[in-house]
């Protein structure tokens, strides 16, 4: 007797009334290829897990953002936010596209110099710049964004012994209608601290105040807060012009544009709710152009956009280790990607896709990483197809912050691969080996 074709037995609860949160997406469309490279081939060649970055996506995203702003405001300059992803290959793509560098530590500063960025095109942000860092930045004509008065006086003291007049901006925090206000960085606009900082710089005449900086927060869902911020910055620039007769050369509105990832607990997916580059550009340019600023000498608009420029270009590929049922009967899948490699899983509900076509049946699943730690959960609950041990999957939109905030914890970090514009993959950071870790260690003699 001919045997019948087997279909995996399943039972599915029927929802009356309220459609389930997953009701909109009944099928798991696979991601089988990234820029013409099959996921199976990438894993075959570079191992599992592996980070994959699409150079094409970086360039296209950059061009979209650049276009959105330059069509609305005459002078625009992007500065690549190193902390978001400072792998040299990634930085160089942005620099080739015309980005300056935005750094927040001596380490990042040196990395930018190492990437060939001119000192005068490095923006130095952050609360922790050592004297050594500041000296170097002054020597190189970098743009130093002052965070607090202690820093201002350090720069003043350094400028006494230096033949150069430091080029500075002040970081400003303010109420843009989004709370909490990030008031731990810079000088407050509403309480007069920002003016206080401006006055002290102008009266001392030891530094050149060339810019105003704000970074109002990250993953900002409201384009309108940028309009408010741009308006306040423009007012301050205008006031400085009126009072001291100098025109501020640039207004830097920092980063913070939302990527299309979905925040934990959000009801609608980020792809539906995140404002577009056009929305942000419209808000910012209207805030600047509708201000008192003299249209004949508008300051350059600097943007330090991070996540929104790189998230889409990054993928994390991995394999299923095992499936199990929890004591409640709830389904769990264990994969070879842990939170050590996907730091952003703490705040995003990352999209996970099978790498090959699978049956239509989805089941609510928890995805665990391989670390022997209870916190190692990639997704608490995702409608996921039944993948078998060894099946591959793709986590989408992971280009921002993961390749800088990753942890060497329990396992070594895997290869990072960039696919170039012709579709050829290159290793841009080699997987770690034991020596990378142990060579930093030293054994006291009595333990050797």
């Amino acid at each position, binding site marked *: 007797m001919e045997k019948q074709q087997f279909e995996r037995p399943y039972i*599915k609860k*029927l929802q009356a009334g309220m459609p389930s949160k997953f009701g909109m997406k009944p099928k798991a469309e696979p991601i089988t290829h990234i820029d013409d490279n099959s996921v199976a081939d990438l894993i075959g060649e570079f191992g599992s897990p592996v980070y994959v970055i699409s150079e094409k996506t970086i360039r296209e995203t950059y061009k979209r953002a650049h276009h959105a702003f330059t069509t609305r405001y005459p002078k625009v300059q992007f500065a690549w936010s190193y902390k978001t992803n400072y792998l040299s290959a990634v930085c160089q793509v942005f620099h080739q596209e015309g980005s300056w560098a935005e750094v927040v530590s001596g380490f990042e500063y040196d990395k930018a110099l190492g990437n060939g960025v001119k000192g005068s095109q490095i923006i130095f942000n952050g609360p922790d710049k050592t004297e050594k860092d500041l000296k170097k930045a002054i020597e190189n004509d970098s743009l130093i964004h002052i965070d607090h008065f202690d820093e201002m006086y350090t720069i003043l003291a350094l400028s006494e012994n230096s033949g150069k007049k430091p080029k500075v901006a002040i970081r400003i925090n303010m109420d843009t209608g989004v709370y909490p206000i990030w008031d731990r960085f810079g000088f407050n606009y509403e309480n007069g601290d920002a003016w206080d900082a401006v006055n002290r710089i102008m009266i001392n005449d030891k530094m050149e105040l060339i810019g105003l900086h704000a970074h109002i927060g990250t993953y900002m869902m409201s384009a309108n807060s940028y309009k408010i911020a741009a308006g306040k910055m423009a007012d301050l620039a205008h006031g400085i012009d009126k009072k001291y007769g100098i025109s501020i050369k640039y207004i830097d509105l920092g980063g913070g544009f939302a990527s299309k990832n979905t925040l934990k607990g959000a009801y609608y997916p980020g792809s539906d709710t995140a404002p577009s580059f056009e929305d942000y550009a419209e808000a910012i340019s209207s805030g600047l152009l509708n201000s008192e600023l003299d249209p004949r000498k508008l300051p350059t608009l600097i943007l330090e956009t991070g996540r929104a420029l790189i998230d889409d270009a990054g993928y994390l590929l991995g394999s299923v280790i095992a499936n199990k049922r929890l004591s409640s009967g709830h389904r769990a899948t264990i994969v070879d990607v842990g939170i050590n490699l996907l730091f952003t899983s703490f705040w995003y509900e990352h999209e996970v896709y099978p790498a090959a076509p699978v049956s239509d049946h989805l089941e609510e699943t928890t995805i665990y990483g391989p670390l022997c730690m209870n916190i190692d959960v990639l997704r608490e609950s995702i409608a996921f197809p039944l993948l078998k041990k060894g099946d591959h999957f793709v986590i989408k939109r992971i280009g921002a912050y993961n390749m800088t905030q990753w942890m060497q914890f329990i396992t070594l970090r895997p290869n990072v691969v960039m696919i170039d514009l012709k579709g050829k993959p290159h290793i841009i950071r080699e997987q770690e080996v034991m020596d990378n870790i142990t060579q930093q260690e030293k054994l006291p003699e009595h333990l050797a």
Partner: protein
Amino acid sequence: MQIKKNIAVSETGFVFDPTSGESYSINKVGQEIMAMLKDEKTPQEIRTRMCEQYDIDQASFEKYYYDFTGMLRQFQLIEEDE
């Protein structure tokens, strides 16, 4: 382990649990397994029968079988043996 007595399984692939008021859809293989569970067949009997009837090896069937009964347990459609 057996299917709760009051659970109704229709021939068109619907399962109704009068205790909770929940209803479920189920595919053909699932329906056949549920019928055998109702008949108090052992897992071994079920496996042998299904592997004769369907194009599936015993090890794979066993994996799917326990996954399926896990779902039945999650939906509280089965009673554990005392």
